[in-house]
């Protein structure tokens, strides 16, 4: 098998520079990496090291200042935001540190969102099944403010997997949770990842969580300092 063909995500010399009050600031400096299909990668580093920025660029949520990203065989940099959105809808799922559930939607409706965007007719049934998979069958019609932090993150995980994405991006998925709940959530995340054979790219400063990934790389001041890229 050609190694190139099994790559689901690769980045080449990704840089991100922003202009602030004190002049320009380099957040990411020529980061290159590649991720094989079905594997899991942890990006670790201290706060401000550029982890979340890198995740955003890999997922096509933002544009790099230079460098390129290929996601699912699709080069992202020539694409406009519209086209990148279509790529995300087809291939990507997200889990955020602060859950990012829509407060006006109940659990079921939040999970239905990605399916609705694809215009699937059986969105409701599939959302209910996804919530059952994360153990929230009894919370279908609860609104985010009626759920605990752990439950909210379960809903977010159900939403991330419901449309069977190739790639799952997780940004500090346990960062807002206590240790026990965090452990339960990471168990859930990894088991679903295995079950769905999804590729996982996770940002975390939690070493024990990172160690559950097959590979990890450490960022410091916007550069990869350890790990294999």
């Amino acid at each position: 098998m050609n190694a190139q063909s099994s790559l689901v995500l690769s980045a080449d010399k990704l840089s991100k520079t922003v202009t602030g009050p004190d002049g320009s600031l380099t957040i990411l400096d020529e980061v290159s990496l590649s991720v094989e299909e079905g594997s899991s990668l942890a990006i670790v580093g201290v706060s401000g090291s550029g982890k979340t920025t890198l995740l955003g660029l890999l997922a096509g949520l933002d544009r790099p200042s230079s460098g390129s990203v290929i996601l699912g065989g699709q080069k992202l940099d020539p694409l406009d935001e519209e086209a990148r959105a279509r790529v995300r809808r087809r291939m990507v799922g997200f889990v955020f540190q602060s859950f990012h559930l829509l407060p006006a939607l109940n659990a079921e409706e939040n999970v239905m969102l990605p399916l609705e965007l694809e215009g699937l007719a059986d969105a409701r049934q599939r959302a209910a099944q996804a919530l059952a998979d994360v153990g929230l069958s009894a919370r279908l019609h609860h609104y985010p403010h009626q759920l605990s932090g752990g439950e909210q993150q379960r809903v977010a995980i159900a939403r991330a997997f419901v449309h069977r994405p190739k790639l799952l991006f997780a940004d500090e998925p346990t960062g807002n949770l206590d240790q026990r709940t965090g452990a339960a959530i990471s168990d859930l995340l990894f088991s679903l990842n295995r079950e769905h054979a999804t590729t996982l790219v996770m940002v975390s400063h939690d070493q024990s969580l990172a160690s559950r990934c097959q590979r990890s790389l450490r960022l410091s001041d916007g550069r990869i300092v350890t790990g294999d890229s």
Partner: protein
Amino acid sequence: MKAGVFAWRSLRREFRHGELATLAVALLLAVAALTAVGTLASRVENTLLGSAADLMGGNLGISASRSALPEEFPAQAAAFGLRSSHSIEFASVLFADGRSQFTEIRAVDGDFPLRGELLVANAQGLQQHIRAPARGEVYIDHAVGAALQAGIGDDVQLGGRDYRIAGELIRAAGGAVVQFAPAMMMNLQDAQSSGLLGVGSRASYRLMVAGEADAIERFSNWAKPRLPDNARLTTIADAQANLRTTLQRGENFLRMAALLAVLLAGVAVALAAQRFARRKTEEVALLRCLGASRNEILLALLLELGMLALPAFAAGGAIGLALHQAAFAFAGPMLGTTPAPIPFAPVFAAVAIGLAVLLGFALPPLLRLRDVEPMRVFRQDMQTRLRRFDALYLLPLVVSAGLLMTQSNSLTLALVLACGLLAVGLLASLFTLLVLRLLRAVGRNWPGALRFGLANLGRRKRLTMIQVTALALSLTALDLLAVVGPSLLERWRAELPADTPNYFVLNLQSDQRAGFEERLRTLGADNFSLLPLAAGKLVGINGKDPALHLGAGDEEASRRIEGEVRVSWSSTLPEANTLIEGTWFEAAPPAAQLSVSRNWMEMLKLRLGDTLTLRFGDRDLRAAISSVREVDWDSFRVNFFLMLDPAHGNPLPHSLISSFHLADGSSELAALSRDMPNLSLVDVNSILDRVRDVIQKVTTSVSWVLAFSLAAGVMVLLGALASTAEERRFETALLRTLGADRRQVNLAILGEFGALGLLAGTISGLGTAATSVVLASEVFNMQGFRPPAFGLAVVAVASALMVMLAGLLGTRRIARTPPMLVLRRGN
């Protein structure tokens, strides 16, 4: 914590967020619109009053019959710094070459006219503004010239002396509004030395004064208690009696426009303050956590609002004045020859109202920030406890009601607007609930993004209801300004069509009728009407003396019944009359029946079925009231307080009164009055022109004010909507993150905002239609007004489009922002 410094820093930091800018713009527009409306209304009114003074020949007049006013009156006027002019009016016979003509004569002094004009034509027909006639000279009008067959340069004789005709009198300030007889103007000293004003002459002496408004006021206050029994004081307002309806209507229009602009601004301020408070919640929680007291937080908030509002008020006042000046520069020339100075009081009033709007509409959500729990810092999704009933939210209602009561100047206008808007508000809430239920039931199978947008409305039930209600109220105000206002103005302009009767003929005898009608037909007169007229006296009400029936204290009613009562009859209800009670006469009722105008019914405290005894010569006629009429006294038709059934009217001794329209018929009518000398011809062209002129002026300036308020309203509304759309920024960003393309995001927003707009547009259309019918009949005295259904339907659809567009505009910026940024900023 230094509240002032903190407030200033907060303001600088937060101004880049939308809410404060919207709030400032709403306040600025409110004050600008109010200033423009207030100054324009006041200046138009002052200019109209000024032109009324021109028409009257001064600002205040005192007429005394039979003898001149005591010398202290002109002396006191001079002491107050007022200019004054004397004139005497009397009737006498003019002679020329063996012909004679009974003439109304005005003798004026050298200061005449103090205000307005004296327009006289010379022998070449050239019209000029000149001063009073020199001694030995007179100006005669066309009718006198025609009757005496005398022209400029000829002599006329009066009281045994000869006077040279120096010009043809075209128009003179202070003349009778309705000219009953041919007229002449002469020098005052000539009249005084003519010997015609001796004891027993029925001359009327008039002192006219002109000057600054406060001096006039002081002189009026000084003069009133000192007036001799034979004297009467006339102010511009009295002189404007025939224009009262017109001016009142105009003022009501202006006030309505200003009020609606303010309420619109109030809605925008409320929406912006609500969003501001929501965003401020985290900060307040943190400050509370760090130890700031509730009162410190509140003080800082109020200071921040004050720092925001002051420049907005100042800029609004300046922009309002500039707008008013631009409008006045355009419309001013139509309003009068001497424009009134810019009034500054309305600017201060506008700022005061702006402040009331700010406090009334912005305070409730901001005061509730005091209740934010410090715990919120740890749990951002913690909801502030909602009160089932929050008395604070009555404040905007109280402020609105207060504004309506104080600014409308008319209880009816205030009540109609208040009830109309309240009904729209309630209807909007109820209707929204119903539609949301319906959407939930039927919307399940709609395309994903559209369903998402529509479902959003149902999920945010509370917010949706607030938004639809606010939108419906704003659109009602806009509808009233944009659709109903012009339609009412159009109706108003059409009330005096081109063929409105401009001549009245009194004292026509039955045997002259055929000949008279024939002459008018030859002349091409149209809109001809002829009614009988019998003069009698009211001698009994329900068999009792009218004075006993009325009791003491009602002088106006007593005065009316003491004089001559004119009665007419007709088999059909005359034009400009509407039956409001009872039925019109049967062909030949066994007993006499009367139809009475509503104002007489009220003045004489009468009821249907009461009997009036009328004395015609030596004959008494007792008639029962069988119907009550609403009479349009501004219609320029012959109208009567009392009408008899024809069967009992015809036998009474009577003459005929006719009204007709004849374009430029003065010379033909002079010939007619020569051939039928008993006729009294009344020319109402000048009064008709005056009313038309004022209607034109008032409606023009009202259109301007409507346009201002409308423009301000649309801008405020668009601003408010755009920032409402900003509330969807987080959702939109999340949708984009999950892969929604622009079309899907747009479809969701179009669905959501389109439904909001259509709901609000429909409700406001219905509310406006109902409110406008009541406004037309109760405030503007226009019966049978039909709201422009097509216009309202167009506005309903246009509102949906406008709201959708505003939604798209508001989210456009977000759609272009990388979703990453929005998500990082958080919810």
